């Protein structure tokens, strides 16, 4: 039994129009996604903007309504559960992308971090303060910072405040939606190291959403690649980076800039070859509506969306 299991998840948003504002069509943001995450592991969800990776994450935690499909968390079906009914809700937390807009500028750090505690735990003022200070220490901020406002912190520090808030209730699963995309490289390294560290210490499971393949490779045990709301490939970092099978994954892997300038020509050549292949065989990899096929196993760990073979 997997820790988190997503089965044929669909999230469709209605498009309204016409005089009466009737629903005329749907945007199929997530259109049949299935995957599972083992406890204590990091699962990477990759794709370009608009591929549905963020919507998937938000649907799991209940920020987007699930149209159909199931989400099983620790054996319990949490699909579209009402917030109040769900004890699992506190076990799943989210870290958001932009540390500048996700912290209320009018609230002190103390109130920001204490908010989840106030919602779920009945603590005395003293206990609450102690917990917040412990949490801040855990994320490497001085306990005195509880009286400061978000604008007094740098981007990396703010993101750590966001993390402190996310781990306040000792969750089991954290959905991290592009947690370091807005940060400078050195701060990025700081936050990534820190996430790995608390994962070990607190036994966390991560769903790591990012468009940065370098970071995904560094962080994740298993990777899923999304395109237009569907999976095109899933496997271990090894499968995805050294043996990408789907044309879209190949394109994505080829697009990563190589840090070695001597490989420049080689990389350019590789990219051109993949681009030609992409243009020629695009239609072979997608059905007549331009959507990816169902995933088929190509090895024990590696699944690729290839046209049906019987």
């Amino acid at each position, binding site marked *: 039994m997997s820790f988190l299991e997503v089965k044929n998840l669909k999230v469709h948003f209605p498009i309204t129009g016409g005089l009466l504002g009737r629903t005329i069509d749907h945007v199929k943001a997530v259109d049949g996604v299935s995957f599972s995450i083992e406890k204590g592991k990091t699962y990477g969800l990759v794709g*370009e*903007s608009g591929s549905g990776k963020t919507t998937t994450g938000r649907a799991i935690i209940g920020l987007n309504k699930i149209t159909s499909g199931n989400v099983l968390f620790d054996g319990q079906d949490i699909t579209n559960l009402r917030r109040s009914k769900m004890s699992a809700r506190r076990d799943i937390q989210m870290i958001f992308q932009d540390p500048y807009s996700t912290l209320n500028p009018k609230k002190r750090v103390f109130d920001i971090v204490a908010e989840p505690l106030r919602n779920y735990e009945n603590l005395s003022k003293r206990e609450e303060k102690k*917990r917040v200070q*412990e*949490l801040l*220490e*855990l*994320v*490497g901020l001085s306990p005195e910072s509880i009286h400061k406002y978000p604008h007094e912190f*740098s981007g*990396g520090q703010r993101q750590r405040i966001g993390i402190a808030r996310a781990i306040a209730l*000792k969750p089991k699963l954290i959905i991290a939606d592009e947690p370091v995309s807005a940060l*400078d*490289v*050195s*701060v*990025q*390294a*700081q936050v*990534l*190291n*820190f996430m*790995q*560290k*608390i994962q070990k*210490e*607190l036994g966390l499971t991560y769903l790591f959403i990012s*468009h*940065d*393949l*370098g*970071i995904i*490779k*560094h*962080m994740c045990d298993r990777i899923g690649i999304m395109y237009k709301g569907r999976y095109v490939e899933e496997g271990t970092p090894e499968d995805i*980076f050294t043996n990408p099978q789907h044309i879209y994954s190949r*394109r*994505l892997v*080829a*697009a*990563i*800039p*190589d*840090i*070695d*300038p*001597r490989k*420049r020509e080689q*990389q*350019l050549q590789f*990219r051109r070859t993949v681009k030609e292949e992409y243009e020629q065989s695009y239609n072979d990899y997608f059905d007549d509506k331009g959507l990816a096929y169902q995933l088929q196993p190509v090895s024990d760990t590696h699944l690729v969306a290839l046209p049906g073979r019987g």
Partner: protein
Amino acid sequence: MGNPILEIENLRTSFRIKDNYYAAVDDVSLTVKKNELLAIVGESGCGKSALAFSIMGLHSKANVEGNIYFKGRDIANISPAKLNELRGKEMGMIFQDSLSALNPLMIIGDQIDEIIYIHNNKLAKKDRKEKVIDLLDKVGILHPAFTYNQFPHELSGGMRQRVVIAMAIANEPELLIADEPTTALDVTIQSQILDLLKKLKEDIHAGIILITHDLGVVAEMADRVAVMYAGQIVEIADVYTLFENPLHPYTRSLLNSVPNSNVVQSELHVIEGIVPSLQNLPREGCRFSPRIPWVDSSAHEKNPELHEVNPGHFVRCTCYRNFYFPEKSKGDQHHVVS
């Protein structure tokens, strides 16, 4: 390569905060040759964009000192009207945020047309339109005649960035400054835009300054690289030397903090501390020294200068000779909540 298109000597750009001026770009000298791509790397707050804006004369309230020679002519101290003749014609700039760089109320075609018209008002409307459509085609827009009549919000981020590039190259500039041109884009789009820039470099033989924080982009694009920290250039070298034999502690720390797809790292290097804000910049001694406290203070110069360690390879301060990475990044000590 050939003669320098741009030569900057001892440029200092200061901003006024309350009653004092603080230099965001401090004593920067560099050259860009025709057909050369110079990358400027550094984290946010290092003065990369301030440098670019100074070259283009886009700072209205800053105090810019030093000399900027564009094709041998000092443009740091010429009148705004004269500068306007150069900007958009001989010097082009690609901005980071394409949505705010474009006028939301004007169709794409008119925005590019305007740039051509301002610098060449003899061209007939019909010819200009043809030229605009050619440009849109050149930057890889699939249906240029259709896009001509579209508004910025109707285009995707990648398409808008192409439009911004089309505007920058409309008058075939000899110097092109690209300020984080792909930062807001997806990798697949990024690689297309970078390929486009490479192609343009060959086509129009421009000198290009590419400002970025992405070392992968630098490795793929640059001929030469300047690394900036706290307003100064700390290292400058050709791209191969910089990646194979980086010397300055900041360059080495940066390179070590990126997840490298070729090597498996258990932990990334973390640079201690943060980039100091403009007011808190150390103005004396090695500016990077607070972030490498384990290196003996005697290793730093009193007044760090750029030393030419090898032909064309400059490093600021002598601390690079004694620099080493600490055993384990000392970083923050964390405890588990019990």
